[in-house]
């Protein structure tokens, strides 16, 4: 298990956004996180990436307790993420966005750059090529020189994935990676995620597009009202009576 979440609770004032969530994510798989709006999916991703601290409970990453660590420490341990409401660096170009995302893997020392040494030039060329590769994988290399704010909605989502890839994470958390995308884009992002998983990256994703989730994920966890309803493979989950009830209401169950 790469990620073990146990009894995680997070309260905001009187609201229990997470109320004892437990789930295990296997190494190298694509794990889906679904549930109705307000179920606590994004809060869970925020806890896992260190943006918010859990009120109680434990999170183990590869056997190390990581709950309550700040976001930058978690990122250094190999956790990268995208945001539901897309957080790019709007004034930077796409290429610059990805190059900024290389923070953990690019040393960029000051003094070689101060004196414009050839070593700095070589290094920077290499970083730029690596960044271009990330853009290529996300299918937006043609937009490299565009400012991020000039991109379409779907392109922004892909750029955010490209930026997350730049740090070569072990665990990639995707918060609605294909929301608002057209069918072609959905398929491309799907095959990107598939190929990342085949290379050994572990992916935990939130998505409301059920065809996408069912086709891509090896395991799915369903959240409702801050609790884990069930975890299983797509087949099991889609026939689980409580899941059907949570999505469609009790009369359909």
């Amino acid at each position, binding site marked *: 298990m790469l990620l073990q979440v146990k009894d995680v609770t997070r309260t905001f004032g009187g609201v229990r956004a997470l109320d004892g969530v437990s789930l295990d994510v296997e190494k190298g798989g694509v794990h889906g996180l679904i549930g109705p709006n307000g179920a606590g999916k994004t809060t869970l991703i925020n806890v896992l990436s260190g943006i918010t601290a859990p009120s109680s409970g434990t999170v183990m990453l590869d056997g190390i307790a990581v709950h309550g660590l700040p976001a930058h420490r978690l990122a250094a341990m190999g956790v990268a993420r995208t*945001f539901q409401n897309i957080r790019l660096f709007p004034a930077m170009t796409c290429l610059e966005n990805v190059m*900024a995302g290389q*923070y953990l893997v690019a040393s960029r020392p*000051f003094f070689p750059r*101060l004196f*414009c040494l050839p070593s700095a030039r070589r290094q920077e060329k290499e970083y730029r090529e690596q960044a271009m590769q990330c853009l290529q994988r996300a299918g937006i290399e043609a937009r490299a*020189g*565009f*400012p991020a704010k000039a991109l379409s909605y779907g392109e922004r989502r892909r750029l955010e994935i490209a930026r997350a890839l730049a740090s070569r994470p072990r665990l990639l958390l995707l918060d609605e990676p294909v929301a608002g995308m057209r069918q072609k884009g959905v398929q491309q992002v799907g095959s990107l995620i598939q190929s990342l998983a085949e290379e050994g990256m572990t992916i935990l994703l939130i998505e409301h597009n059920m065809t996408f989730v069912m086709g891509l994920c090896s395991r799915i966890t369903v959240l409702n009202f801050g609790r884990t309803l069930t975890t299983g493979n797509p087949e099991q989950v889609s026939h689980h009576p409580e899941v059907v009830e949570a999505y469609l209401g009790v009369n359909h169950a």
Partner: protein
Amino acid sequence: MDALNQFFAIYGSLVNFMGINALLALSLYLTLSAGQLSLGSAAFAAIGGYTAGILTMKFGVPFLLSIAAGSIFSGMVGLVIGLPVLRLRGVFLAIATLSFGEVVRIVVLNLDITGGAQGLVGIPNFTTTWGIYLTLAVAGYGIARLRHSRAGWCFESIREDETAASAMGINTTYYKTLAFTLGAILAGLAGGLYAHLNYIITPREFGFSFAVDLLIYNIVGGIRIWYGPVLGAFLLTALPEILRGTGVAAGPMRMAANGLILLLVILFLPNGLVSIFTRNRKPPAGISPVSVAEEV
């Protein structure tokens, strides 16, 4: 040669103040480049200026050593102040740094060693024009190159989106404090140069209005690239003299002209004067090289 000498006899001090103000604008730019709105630069200039002035006058410390000491001391104060106040964001940070500026002003107003309200009088005149412009050239070059280093990328990322920057692995507290401290060091250095240029420094000069002036230099010049603040400081420092040359009398008219220029820049050049030079680059088509990433 004669013409040059005559120019310097008339405008020498203006040229010096343009350089000092450009240095101070750059010091604020360092902090702004990490997205932190500080109004404390004037206070750091006061700390550096008073420290250096007192060291030369009262302890006979050599000029270079005393301005270095003033700069380092200012940086140390910046570090101590920065750690707590940089937890605040946006306008709250501005207010906190503004009150820090007031505290510094009141402290130098009431201490004996700083000369109280009268100020520090009789500081030996060691600062030279070439000294100021050499410092400015080194600072400008250093800041321009810093943009390509790890810290520079971090500053830029934090300014664009602090949450995303931290999710990428950037320790935002560390880099915000670094930007703030580097700004304080440079402001302290400029303050030391100023003290040894002006013969006298008083608490009044480093008050709120000067802190705002430094911010205006940045906004008018543009905060997207390092030469923006330099340009802004040059233009706005020279503007009263330019207006005098064109026959606009001193007093309210000149203030109005100042305000009008600021207004026009904000309305028509929201990225500052530097956008005059960058706007003509062709809009992105394919992979356009309008990007820092393409250089180094």
